């Protein structure tokens, strides 16, 4: 009986993240359009885009190999699995122990590895510029993310997301300098990882400033749909991780009743909404930076993460 319930919750989580991800992106776009006093696309536009792309034929370059065709599925599957293993509305997911936070980050790293390869596959200069910049950004963002994980793991005594979340709600944590540093660094890394302004512009079509969009320039049809969905899932993943680690209140415990689960669902949606609005406000209030300013930005995130870890090595209570 318990097993069936756990399987049901795990399945619900997988469907939930899949269904919510385009909505989150759509919401960020709507809020941005509102802030810019534009008439933006409707809230559900990302869903319509996905459906339209899925039904179109794929135009494949002559020089594309099998890797180019397999990559969208790998990227989508890796990101989806990662997003499904983050506690969102209820902790104690059936398979949450199968990958801790380090493994989840590395899983997203695998997805990026294949996407960067696909950028080089057709043999165009735009794919190359996108890939090379993407790996440069990742080479700083990934260690920064790991240092953030270290900071939180040292406080919680675990790298398992559900145990970290439980520890954060337990009240034993309190306000800590290292947590503040980690939160700031995590926000910076999330912005970079999701190709948002000021690192990259998801809406740009000015070739020389593109990073992520240049890398996937050759994709079309269902392949592009999967890659778009994967980046929407990635945004949801990072927001869920921030919500789960830094504002874990409301998440239903594993033995929670229907009311707890309802509260958990409601608070999760509220957290996402607040996160989406904050992201839109942040993005409209700042200009995109030059590519070679990015290392300074991410280097700062890396140093903040390292500082947080170092503080905890010096004293467990900082």
């Amino acid at each position: 009986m318990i097993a069936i319930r756990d399987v049901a919750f795990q399945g619900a989580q997988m469907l939930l993240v899949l269904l919510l991800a385009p909505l989150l992106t759509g919401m960020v776009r709507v809020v941005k359009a509102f802030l810019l006093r534009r008439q933006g696309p409707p809230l559900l536009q990302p869903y319509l885009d996905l459906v339209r792309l899925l039904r179109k034929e794929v135009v494949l370059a002559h020089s594309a190999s099998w890797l180019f065709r397999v990559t969208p599925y790998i990227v989508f599957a890796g990101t989806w699995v990662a997003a499904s293993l983050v506690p969102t509305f209820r902790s104690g997911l059936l398979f949450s122990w199968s990958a801790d936070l380090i493994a989840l980050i590395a899983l997203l790293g695998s997805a990026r590895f294949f996407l960067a390869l696909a950028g080089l596959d057709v043999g165009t200069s735009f794919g190359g510029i996108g890939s090379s910049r993407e790996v440069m950004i990742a080479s700083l963002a990934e260690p920064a993310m790991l240092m953030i994980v270290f900071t939180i793991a040292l406080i919680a005594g675990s790298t398992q997301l559900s145990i970290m979340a439980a520890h954060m709600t337990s009240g034993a944590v309190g306000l800590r300098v290292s947590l503040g540093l980690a939160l700031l660094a995590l926000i910076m890394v999330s912005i970079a990882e999701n190709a948002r302004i000021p690192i990259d512009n998801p809406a740009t079509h000015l070739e020389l400033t593109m990073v992520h969009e240049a890398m996937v320039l050759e994709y079309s049809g269902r392949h592009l749909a999967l890659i778009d969905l994967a980046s929407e899932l990635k945004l949801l993943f990072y927001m869920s991780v921030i919500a789960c680690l830094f504002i874990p209140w409301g998440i239903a415990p594993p033995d929670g009743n229907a009311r707890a689960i309802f509260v958990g669902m409601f608070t999760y949606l509220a957290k996402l909404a607040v996160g989406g609005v904050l992201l839109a406000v942040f993005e409209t209030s700042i200009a995109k930076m030059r590519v070679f300013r990015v290392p300074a930005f991410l280097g700062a995130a890396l140093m903040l993460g390292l500082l947080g870890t170092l503080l905890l090595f010096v004293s467990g209570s900082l």
Partner: protein
Amino acid sequence: MVTSALFGIVALLALSPIAVFLASSSRATAVIYAPCLIITLMLAAVGGACLFEQPVSSIALPLGLPWLGAHFKIDSLSAFFVIVVNLGGAAASLFALGYGQHEQAPERVLPFYPAYLAGMNLVVLADDAFSFLVAWEFMSLTSWALVVAHHYERENLRAGYVYLLMAGFGTFALLLAFGLLAGSNGNYLFESIRAAQPSSGVAAMVLVLGLVGAGSKAGVVPLHAWLPLAHPAAPSHVSALMSGVMTKVAVYGFVRIAFDLLGPPVWWWSILVLAVGGITAVMGVLYALMQHDLKRLLAYHTVENIGIIFIGLGLALAFKAYGMADAAALALTAGLLHVFNHSVFKSLLFFGAGAVLNATGERDMEHLGGLIHRMPQTAFAFLVGCVAISALPPLNGFVSEWLTFQAILLSPQLSSWGLKFLVPAVGALLALSAALAAACFVKAFGVSFLGRPRTPAAANAIETNSNSLAAMFFLSALCLVAGVLPGIFIDALAPVTNALVGVSIPHQTGLDWLTIVPIAESRSSYNGLLVFVFVATSGSIAAFAIHRLASDKIRRGPAWDCGYPDPSPATQYTASSFAQPIRRVYGTAVFKAREIGEMPPPGATRPARLTVELRDLIWDAAYVPIATAVEYAAGRLNVLQFLTIRRYLALVFSALVLLLLVLAI
């Protein structure tokens, strides 16, 4: 058991003279490599059997020094390294069954190859300092002979020269280390060295000498200079052995000295090892990113991975010094598992580079491209190796790095302040090197195998032979198995950690769903199998659903490229342009990188040129001064060669008087 291992080694040694006579025959390749394959497989099986065997089997042979003899023993540590050496050896022999057919100078490769395998086996089996050093030097010299097998290329001669110097230097350091360990009574037996606890000063000197001696063979920065020259110079299956296996033999030497012979460690040893490991990891990968020679790039990655292994070993030393046996077992397991993993994927990658070299005659990535169409199977195996070495789940490289991270997370309990500051920094360096390695292998695979062919050689490449492919697929399968079922491999290391730090990490294979839980379930767990199954199923379901429900139509057309596709393959990103952003970020500090753009004046028709200048600061700071000093001294002493007989006599006489005076005082 050690007897059967020695029989195998003797059989390998016996193959060498046979190879001398057979080398010119057309069947020599099969006649030499097939027995090598069988013998190494048997030796690996012996290693597997000895891993759990109690009591340890040992033997003393009346060889070598008359009052000492030669002692051999196969305890769990030796057995583990016997497995690593011979799995790598077997894969290389299988690969060479096909690859060796194309060897232009088989008479310079075949006789040394079995001897080299035998030498590496002897090092890990030796149970006294004398046999160890003789075997070590034998291994160095046979590998040197293989490095200069293609001596008609000037580059290779230089590589051989630098290698010979550095190998001599390393052995010299080890000689001093064992001399100190043996003490004034000359107890060369490992048994008596273990019994005689060295004083703390002597132990510290031995550790430093051991780190220098074994580290120079393993390729730790700054003693790595020979490695990226020598490893690529050898034929590819030997490169695989040198990078994948011989560096592990060097790690064995260090582990034997630091964990076994020296007795209880002192905390500051670990600072030294950790600092060296962290710097080696990051420097190795940064050097690798700047390369466009495929085999040299792989060689620099060996430097990086040796750094990762030394981080694990350094953490284990730190935990052991503070009596945290469980954590020490975890860190040591992480380091040794990375030894195994690296030997697998690095051999695989060198095989792939060898297959490419064979098919195109090119090692330079700037002349490759598009090989995934021409060599699909090689490309697939190489891709597996790339994912594994980049520490990405669900393959094996990730498991050992994950264990290292878990060990780092245990280290705030260490009470020394030096370690409290160093370990987080080393953790950041490890994370940085992992991310940079992924970047580097996107470049290595993307530029060589993807895109469009840059030269006719790459456009007309043909898939390599079935033996070589079999070797590559065998290692790819091992990468996957060790990645999704790491528990088996971790459990196999339990006797080794038991012997070296007293405990082992909890038994893994019995856990639900084959998860690995190195410390406690509440702390961390990872299940490569489930992650792999999840990704594979959700990817397949997505593919199936989309093809059935939405669209499965495909139209081939020219590349889009924002509307301006250019048919020239020169418009693609090259290896150096791919690395340019990273070079800008890290290169200015580490390599004093300078980009010089030369624009022709308006109206001139010659093309603009962009030159990139990189300086190897370690080479400039450490090696050039020594070379200059030696050259200066040699120039000064050169006059002694052209003296008259009178002056020679005077010189001899004054030297005699001087020596007598020294004796008198």
